């Protein structure tokens, strides 16, 4: 009834994706903004932008925004490595109002200096946990931002050609498309783009709380890579689920880690395969990391049909039943789930990222044709192209 498998989309028009589910009794409206290449400084500014823009626009204050949404909640916005996602949940019949609010947010956010400073102070109070630090290896620590710089980044990112609107739930077909088109036909992005100098990452290289994280990050591949099914299955075999190689070796054989995952990490224009595990190991973490990598290699060499079938079964669980330990890390909370908001986001995101409509059944059928030898080769490639990245706990 509810799965990524059944999240069939109707592409209403370029830039608008609809997913009609009349039984939902609510509607999720989202703007998915694919990012251009950004400097580290621009990324830091963008993290401020997405929180500041939801405080006030030319037409909406926080109170007015809450009146648009179901239950009076504020729109939510987050930055991922290759996109920005803004979402709002509205009651049935509230889609037009939601689209109006999104239009206002992406084009006419107020970005007042006082609000920028408020966001900045709030960011300083947040202590990233070990997993966040492992995922976001090159984040800059927030520093004060002046409004002109904030506005430049806002204008660089929020451009008509970069935005996909995704609407899901109890909706009237074409309503969102009509409203979005009517409101944005005259929208022309600024011709020039800001140019910022190069900055060096200054994020702390040690995690709070004494937890070390170890990563093996394979070579990046492009969004439309024809070998995506093979690479995805290899990643699952390596690190997704309780019978994956990483779990069997890192947790069951050595008891070095409780949490270990494989991640298909989106980057601008492509994907990075990543294996990450958390450990209380301190100075001996590098040695353990190398041992683990060696043993993973050996494990891959010994893979048989049972391993391939386990990975395939797990992939089906992810796509059809929303098993949580999915490598599809597309939200700030982790893997994309199967609730209405995430499904709506996913169909819009996939279209924006790959240029084709999401078709889980097709992906599953391609996964079934991945041979054992191809699977082993792809897993070996992930391991051979990766270097351990370690963040020690303090």
């Amino acid at each position, binding site marked *: 009834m*509810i799965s990524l*498998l059944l999240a069939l989309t109707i592409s209403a028009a370029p830039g608008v994706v609809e997913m009609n589910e009349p039984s939902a009794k609510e509607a999720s409206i989202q703007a998915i903004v694919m990012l251009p290449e950004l400097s580290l400084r621009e990324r830091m500014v963008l993290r401020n932008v997405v929180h500041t823009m939801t405080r006030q626009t030319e037409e909406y204050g926080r109170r007015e925004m809450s009146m648009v949404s179901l239950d009076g909640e504020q729109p939510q916005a987050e930055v991922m490595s290759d996109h920005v996602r803004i979402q709002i949940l509205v009651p049935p019949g509230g889609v037009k109002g939601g689209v109006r609010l999104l239009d206002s947010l992406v084009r006419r956010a107020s970005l007042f200096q006082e609000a920028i400073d408020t966001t900045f102070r709030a960011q300083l*109070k947040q202590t990233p*946990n070990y997993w966040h630090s492992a995922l976001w290896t090159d984040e800059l620590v927030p520093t004060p931002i002046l409004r002109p710089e904030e506005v430049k980044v806002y204008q660089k990112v929020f451009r008509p050609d970069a935005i996909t609107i995704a609407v899901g739930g109890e909706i009237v077909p074409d309503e969102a498309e009509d409203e979005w088109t009517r409101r944005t036909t005259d929208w022309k992005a600024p011709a020039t783009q800001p140019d910022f100098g190069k900055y060096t990452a200054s994020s702390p290289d040690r995690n709070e709380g004494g937890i070390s994280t170890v990563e093996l990050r394979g070579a990046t591949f492009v969004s439309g890579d024809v070998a995506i099914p093979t690479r995805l299955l290899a990643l699952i075999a390596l690190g997704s689920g309780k019978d994956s190689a990483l779990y069997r070796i890192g947790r069951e054989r050595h008891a070095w*880690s*409780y949490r270990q995952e494989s991640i298909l990490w989106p980057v601008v224009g492509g994907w990075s395969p990543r294996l990450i595990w958390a450990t209380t190991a301190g100075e001996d973490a590098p040695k353990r990391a190398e041992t683990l990598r060696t043993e993973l290699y050996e494990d891959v060499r010994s893979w048989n049909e049972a391993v391939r079938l386990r990975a395939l*079964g797990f992939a089906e*669980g992810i796509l*059809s*039943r929303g098993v949580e330990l999915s490598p599809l890390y597309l939200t700030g909370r982790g893997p994309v789930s199967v609730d209405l908001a995430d499904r709506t986001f996913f169909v819009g995101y996939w279209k924006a990222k790959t240029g084709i409509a999401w078709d889980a059944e097709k992906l599953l059928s391609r996964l079934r044709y991945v041979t054992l030898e191809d699977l082993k080769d792809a897993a070996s490639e992930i391991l051979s192209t990766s270097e351990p990245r370690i963040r020690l706990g303090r």
Partner: protein
Amino acid sequence: MLSVLACVLALQVPLEQPPRLRTILPNGSAVLVERMPGATTLSVQLFVGCRGVRDTPQTHGLRHLIEHLSARGKGDLDHRLETAGAFLYAKTLRDATIYEIRCGPKDLKLAMDSLREILRLPEVTDDMVKKEAQILGEEGAIRDRLTLESEEAWTSAYADQGLSPFGNLDVIKNATPDMIKKLVRAEMVGPNLAVTVAGNVDLDEATKLASEIIAYAPLAPNLKDEVRPLDLPVVVGDNYRAVKVPRYSDAETAWNLAACLAVASDMEDGYVTYTPVARNGLIVFGSAEGRSSLDTTLKNADPVTLFARGRSMARRWVANQLFDPGGIAYFRGLLLVQDHVVKPESLLENLTTMTYPQFRATLQRLTGGAQ
């Protein structure tokens, strides 16, 4: 054995009609099956309650250790499940341990066989305990701030009756196979067991299969529970507040949940944690930003604005829990294993009858000192 089981099944008394069937077995265990035509996911959950074996400082963590050991099954359980596209989740709460098999609609028997395997704890050795204690040490180290704050709030509120479900690593490390065997024997009694099933299944077939795996457990007629005291109702932490609430089905719990959700929605990154419990419990709320956002929001909390929002959000909180087969089996089972009568919907009824003066008084109690 078969004749005993046939007799047991004949004595089952269905208390509700489709789409949901609840069955209380003669040994005090319970089965609930919810039929969801068209659902692509099937969730089968085993609940092991802890009446009679509640954590004490001396046993603190043994239930969690048993969860880890049991979830291994015969050793290759995860491989078999994952190959079939199924997955095993296990977690230990203060009031129950839960094992869930999430699978496809045709895999009901696989799920039941897996739970049966989990119920038969293998022979435990000192080496197994030692290794699992090491893994639990890794698990304990990665608990996040909100979890630790919640544990602190529970201990402040209920002392030894609010011990964390995670446990004490020293107790876990020093556990012996005999201690574990004894605890399992005390835990696995009829009234402490429930199985819930939610998905596209036949009610009778699922009820029969679920009954077969827990009907063997012995009766335990005199299981007693201490009452968590409700004095000093509000706990003030550095970054959170917590309010003691009576059992889930009590109207006051619904009012408090509505008030906490409404207040948290006004905070920057506000959060509320509440686990449905058929005895006195605790709602913890705060802001990921810390104390200043919490204090400001509490100071400015306006009952007129928050009343309708709180009621609506609490309703949605229930609806979100009952969103999919996994949520339905979890929510219904967690209440069922503690009390056969309490239902998730009781909170909705209490929200409907909640008056503005009741909400305002609840909010004032929560914000006490801040306004």
